[in-house]
Every structure is written in structure tokens, then in C-alpha cells.
């Protein structure tokens, strides 16, 4: 029997737990509501660089200790930074939960030594170089910039060679002090655990952290759409991306938007699959829904031979127009719901999947839903709900950014 618990420490830190006594393992994570959208222009990339620095030691642990201790628990562990959250997680056997909490909580108060900062800067510059060799990533960063313009969602997660080179340890410390308050983070745990013990340990490890007043800015997104082509003569393929407004993570239409996106552009059996991939016109064509904090997008992506770039772009646009005019059929809606439901159940069988689900849900909406409740909300999506999303978000204004070897 799965049960849910929520509690808040006096300093404002939320603890959410989904307890499953039948699980063989447990996943634990700290998610901080901060990312590239919370950076000012002169510290571009600091959220992600800081995520690396959180592994570099604390008042009582060296960087080598941190890595060695995770390994000694046999943990699968990592961290990631997005435009709006930074998450540190570990998947472990239940007997290591106290040790994992001790380690992760300690990491949330990092030493940020200058020597480690200088060394890790080199690794970040390598990561930037690595992504510059991936056309899909280059294009995604470009369209986020083109689409969101002055809105903070336009900011790059990695930053640039220039912004990272110029960044100082003190600027990072200032950012950390402003963003990593306990009220701006959630501790989420899913799987097999002793909740009372977890609560006692969380009080002990995190209870002393001083409350901070942390706010996120929500400027209006002024999206006008537009077109841009980027030439890179060494590429063999042409890459096309489209972005248009969609429901946010808080919008009631987000379940319908998810079904819509699957029917339009899942990698198999979707409208774009039949129009572009099945006939061999594009080796990849996807349409996704990205619900963000108080703002959202639909995103389409395809790659093709440069000679077919015009044809592929035309088909992409005409498929979206057909959706606006005629919506989806009941069969399409039902198939997409079944696909999404199965994926949710499969993910729900693994503690790591559940931890990430309850964690982001709490960050975005301060709510918990059981897997069954989630599936019911999905099941309730019908043609009318899809139509409502399309009326409110008619794939317009649309931003088109392309990347390829030839001039447009």
C-alpha cells in the first residue's frame, strides 16, 4: 500500500515522501527552484556551474569524499540543471537512506573553494565545447533565444565560453546565497523507507539552515515569432525547429496538451511520423509539449537532407494547420492516452521515476497526485479538451529556426 506524507520544516523546507513498503530500493533528491531563468545576464551559466561545484566538498568533506561516499553506498546518483530547476539525486538500497540524506544535505551547503572553482571551470568549458558539436543542441539554444527574446527563458543553461571564463567564485557565492534558501527547495523521497526516521534526520541535517526570502521574477513573455537560418558549412544534415506558445505547468489544459503533442509528434505512429518519417523524408520528426513555470511551449524538431529542407518545412507547417482546422480524431486521442498511461505506469514501478514526478509536481504546483489520480486526469481528456487547448494556443505566433550547411 503506497502512502504519501508531506511536512514542512520551520525554515520553510518542504519534505514530500511516497512510501512503498514493497519497493526494493529508494530514491532521494533535493530539487531547488532555480535555473538559468533566475540568472542575471552577467552570470550566464552560473546555475549549472554551481551544480558541478556542489559536488566539490563541504565544511566536513572533500570533493573526493563526496564521490567516494556515493560509490560506497552503491548509489546511482547525479544532478541536472534546467532553465528553472536544479536537482541532486541518488537511487540507493533502503539501508543507505540515512547516509545518502546526510551526504546530500551536507552538499547543499558547499564550501565553494577557489581552487576547485578554477579546476571545475575547465570541465564546464569542455562541456560547452561538447555540446557545440551536437547540432540538435545548438539549434535548441538558438530557438529558445529567438522565441523568448527578452524573457528569461531565453537564457542559455550552459552559458558561453565568454560568460563562464569571466565568472568569479564570489559571483557564484552571491548567487548561491540568494537562491539556495530552504524555502526554495524540496526534499523528495520515494520507495521503501522509515518516514519518521527520515523526518528526524531531515530536522537534524537541514533544520539549521536559515530561512531566506527567495522570489522568482515572472515578466510577461512577449512572443512575436519570426524566422532565422544559421549556416554551418561542415554539417551534412539540415535541422529545423519550430516553437509556439503552449499551456504552462500550472494550466488546467496541460493533460490535454500532452495528449495533443503525443498524437502530433511522438516518434512512432503520430501525424508527423506518418507525414515525414514513414515516407523517409526526415529521419527524425518530433512534436513536444514543454510546460514551464507560468509559461509554456510547443516545440517541433526535424532533421533531413538539405535538398529536402523546403519540402519538410512545408509539410511540418501544413500538418500543424490541419490540427488547427480539424483537431484530432477520437481514435488518435484514445491511442495517445494509452501510450502516455502505459509510460506513466512503467515509470511508476521505479522509485526514481516516482521521486522525480512528486518532486517536480511539488515545485511547480505544491500538490501531490497518486499515480491513479494522474491516470484519471489523463483519462478525462476528450476531443472537447483538445479543442479548447487548440483554441487557446493555436500554434501562433510561431518561431522558426533552422540550421544547415547551405544558405537558406
Amino acid at each position, binding site marked *: 500500500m503506497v502512502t504519501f506524507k508531506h511536512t514542512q520544516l520551520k525554515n520553510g523546507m518542504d519534505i514530500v515522501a511516497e512510501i512503498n513498503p514493497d519497493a526494493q530500493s529508494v530514491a532521494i533528491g533535493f530539487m531547488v527552484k532555480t535555473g538559468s531563468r533566475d540568472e542575471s545576464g552577467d552570470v550566464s551559466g552560473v546555475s549549472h556551474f554551481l551544480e558541478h561545484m556542489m559536488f566539490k566538498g563541504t565544511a566536513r568533506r572533500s570533493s*573526493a569524499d563526496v564521490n567516494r561516499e556515493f560509490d*560506497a553506498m552503491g548509489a546511482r*546518483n547525479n544532478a541536472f540543471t534546467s532553465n528553472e530547476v536544479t536537482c541532486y539525486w541518488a537511487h540507493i538500497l533502503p539501508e543507505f537512506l540515512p547516509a545518502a540524506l546526510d551526504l546530500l544535505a551536507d552538499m547543499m551547503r558547499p564550501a565553494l573553494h577557489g581552487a576547485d572553482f578554477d579546476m571545475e571551470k575547465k*570541465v564546464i568549458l569542455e562541456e560547452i565545447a561538447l555540446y557545440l558539436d551536437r547540432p540538435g543542441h545548438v539549434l535548441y539554444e538558438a530557438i529558445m533565444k529567438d522565441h523568448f527574446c527578452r524573457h528569461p527563458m531565453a537564457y542559455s543553461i550552459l552559458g558561453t565560453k565568454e560568460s563562464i571564463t569571466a565568472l568569479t567564485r564570489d559571483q557564484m557565492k552571491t548567487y548561491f546565497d540568494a537562491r539556495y534558501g530552504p524555502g526554495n527547495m524540496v526534499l523528495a523521497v520515494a520507495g521503501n523507507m522509515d518516514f519518521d526516521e527520515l523526518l528526524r534526520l531531515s530536522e537534524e541535517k537541514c533544520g539549521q539552515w536559515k530561512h531566506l526570502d527567495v522570489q522568482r521574477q515572472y515578466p510577461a513573455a512577449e512572443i512575436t515569432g519570426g524566422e532565422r537560418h544559421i549556416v554551418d558549412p561542415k554539417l551534412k544534415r539540415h535541422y529545423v525547429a519550430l516553437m509556439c506558445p503552449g499551456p504552462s505547468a500550472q494550466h488546467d489544459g496541460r493533460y490535454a496538451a500532452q495528449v495533443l503533442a503525443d498524437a502530433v509528434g511522438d516518434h512512432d505512429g503520430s501525424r508527423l511520423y506518418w507525414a515525414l518519417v514513414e515516407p523517409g523524408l526526415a529521419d527524425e520528426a518530433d512534436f513536444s509539449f514543454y510546460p514551464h513555470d507560468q509559461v509554456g511551449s510547443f516545440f517541433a524538431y526535424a532533421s533531413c537532407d538539405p535538398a529536402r529542407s523546403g519540402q519538410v518545412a512545408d509539410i511540418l507547417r501544413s500538418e500543424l494547420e490541419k490540427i488547427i482546422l480539424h483537431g484530432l480524431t477520437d481514435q488518435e486521442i484514445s491511442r495517445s492516452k494509452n501510450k502516455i498511461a*502505459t509510460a506513466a505506469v512503467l515509470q511508476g514501478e521505479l522509485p526514481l521515476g516516482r521521486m522525480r514526478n512528486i518532486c517536480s509536481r511539488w515545485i511547480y504546483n505544491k500538490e501531490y497526485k497518486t499515480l491513479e489520480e494522474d491516470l484519471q486526469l489523463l483519462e478525462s481528456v476528450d476531443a472537447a479538451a483538445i479543442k479548447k487547448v487548440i483554441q487557446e494556443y493555436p500554434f501562433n505566433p510561431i518561431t522558426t529556426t533552422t540550421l544547415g550547411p547551405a544558405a537558406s
Partner: protein
Amino acid sequence: MSIVKTAGLKARQDVTTLSNGLTLLVESMPDVRSAALTILTPMGAASDPANGLGSANVLADWITRGAGERDNRALTDYLDSLGVQRSASAETVFMRFSASMLADKLPQVLPVYGDILLRPMLPDAGFGPARDLAMQQLDAIEDEPAQKLNLLIKSRHFPQPYGRPVVGKKEHLTALTPAGLRQDFTSRSTARGSILAVAGAVEFSAVRDMVEKHFGSWQSKEPVQMPAQAAAGGVWHEQQSSNQVQIGLAFDAIPESDPDSIVLQLAMNILSGGMGARLFSEIREKQGLCYSVSAGYMSLKHLGAVLGYAGTVPERAQKTLDSFLHELQRFSAGAQRDELDRAQVGMKARVIMNGESSAARAGAIAHDFYHYGRPRTLDELRGRIESVDLKRLNTFLDVHRAGKMTVVTIGPAPLAVPVDMIG
């Protein structure tokens, strides 16, 4: 004949072979409501015709474009309506089909895979697009230097046909015809040597009856074998103006069927398991030379290799390669007890965590059958990991030193490799 074992963590395993030679492996897991299947059939790149490299890769796409009574669209819509998450791909030895679903859908899904493998339509209309997509894959690899390196290092290090890139060659793909590829499919399709693994909320006898019914008439013949040729090896550089230099290296290792492979796997964990492992710690953490640095173990039935990878900007590339080679040499002097302890805890934890996923278990028991001739239980895996002590590990590292290297780089300029290390 059916062999029954308790798999640990309350699961149970059954093994049986159909009269046509198809092996069925079933692992019943009590705590899940999903089911997953993995089918491995010996129709991979290694058995592609010598003048038809890339055939298996095209077939893996074409074969799902309609089967039995359902055309391409009906087949796709049917599996989607059942919510099946799936993939089909060609690998070196096998063509692999994977599918995950809610367990109550298995009786509807298994017959579809029977149709795909025994009665594919292989329609004329689907041939062109399937081949076109395979050709586009060749170009896409040129845009992703890390992927390209992975293909290059394998093709230089492994004896042919085992090093063949699955994607094949453009001129061979151009020459393929629908009739020729259908003929190729018929000549390679066989129940013997194929493995069907099912894991999840399933019951053995019910699965066996369904598999007998839908796969029982699959033709049976010896899987096609291509003659082996020596590997190229040596040092190879590919000029490309990428942001990072791609560095790949490889040396021979024992195959997984060797009783000592568990020692090698533990050694690989010490070298490149978690963030505290040697390569990550010495090359990234202490020197900041790269973002990605790793080594992995790869094995086919009769051969194995350790493959190393690093990506770094041109000015740090030589130092990265030198440090990598230095770590490999230093490793032959042995590991410390705490390193072995951590590797053992990590591998055991992985065994238990993978035991929670039906998809991971279906893949694992199929893998086991290929390498060991039987599925291994989680308890057996744990026992094997625990059986290795420091003396055995260090003796192994001393005897099995990193041998002659194959080194491949992609970037603006070649790197210097010590002559005595080149194979």
C-alpha cells in the same frame, strides 16, 4: 523441457526450448503490473551479405511495416492502441525487438511479434523509405563526432565481421533491391539461435502456450555465419574541424563467458564505475582535462574488449590521451581493498535495482542466455560478485595487463601514441 529456478526477490525463472529451436525464457515478477519482452534473432550486421552491408539495419525498419493481416498503419495503430512502448534495431550479432506494456496486454501483443518475425509483409512501398532512412543515418553520424568515433573504434579493433558498423555502406545500400532483401531475410530467419525473453507480471505456462501457438511454426535452420578476418588495429586519425577532439582506444579482453569475467567487470567498475572511479577522479576531477572520460567492457560470445573514450578540446588532447594510457598502465599494479569494496557494493545494488524493472530483467535474461547458456538469478549474481577477493582481483590485473592498443582520434591533428602500446 522446462527448468525452474527461484530468481531471488520473490521472482521465479523458467526456461524451455520449442521443438523448432526457439528458446523461451520467462521471469515472473510478483511486485509489478507491467510485462516486457525482448527478442534476439541472429540477423545482425555480422551476418549481412559481404556486398550488402547495412542490410540488417534496413530490415529492422522494413520488417515492422506491416505483418500478418495488418498493413503498416494498422500494425502501428494496433500496438499504439495497446500502449506498447517498443523498438526494433539491428546490432552486431542479433536483431533486437523490445516491447514494454501493461501485463494484461501481452496476449494481444505476442501474436503481433509472431506476425512480424514469421509473416512480415516486406511491402514494396516500404522498401524505399526504409533504405532512405538508413542512408540518412549515415549522414547524421557525420554530424555527431562522438557517435562516429564509436563506430570507427569498433570497426578498427574487432575482427570482421564483428566490427562492422550496423549502418553499413552507402554504395551497398544503393544497390539493395526489395527482392534481394526479401531473399536475404528468408535465408537468415530462423527460430534456432533466437531467444524470446518475457519478464513481469506473467505466468510461465500461459506464456509458453502463447509462444508455442504463435512462434511454433517458425522455420528452423543453422544461423548464418560469416568467416572471420583479422582486425585492422593500429592508430587511425580522421581529420575534422570539430570543437572537441574525440579519442577512442581499445584492447582485447576475455569474453563474458570466461569464469573470470566477473573479476574484469569489478575491475571496470574500479576504473570507470561511479564518480569516485579512477578515470573520472584522476583525469576529470584532479586535472580538469575533460567532461567525458570513461571505459567500458564489451563482449560478444567469443571475444571481448575494453573500449576507452575521452572528448576534449585540441590543446588538452595529448595530455588527456597520455593520462588515460598512464592510468591503464598503473592499473596493472593492482587495486586497493576499499576500491574493491565499493565496486562490489555498487554492482550488487545495481543487480537489486534492475530487479525492479521488467524491461531490464527481460533484457538481462536474454543477455545471460546468449553468454552463459542460461538465465542467471539475482541471488547467483550477488554470490558471484561477493566471491571475488582482493588477491584474485590483483592477480587478474597483473596477468591481464592492457595489451596492444587500437587508437582512433577525430579532430584537427593526430596525437602521438607510444609505439610499444600500438597493436
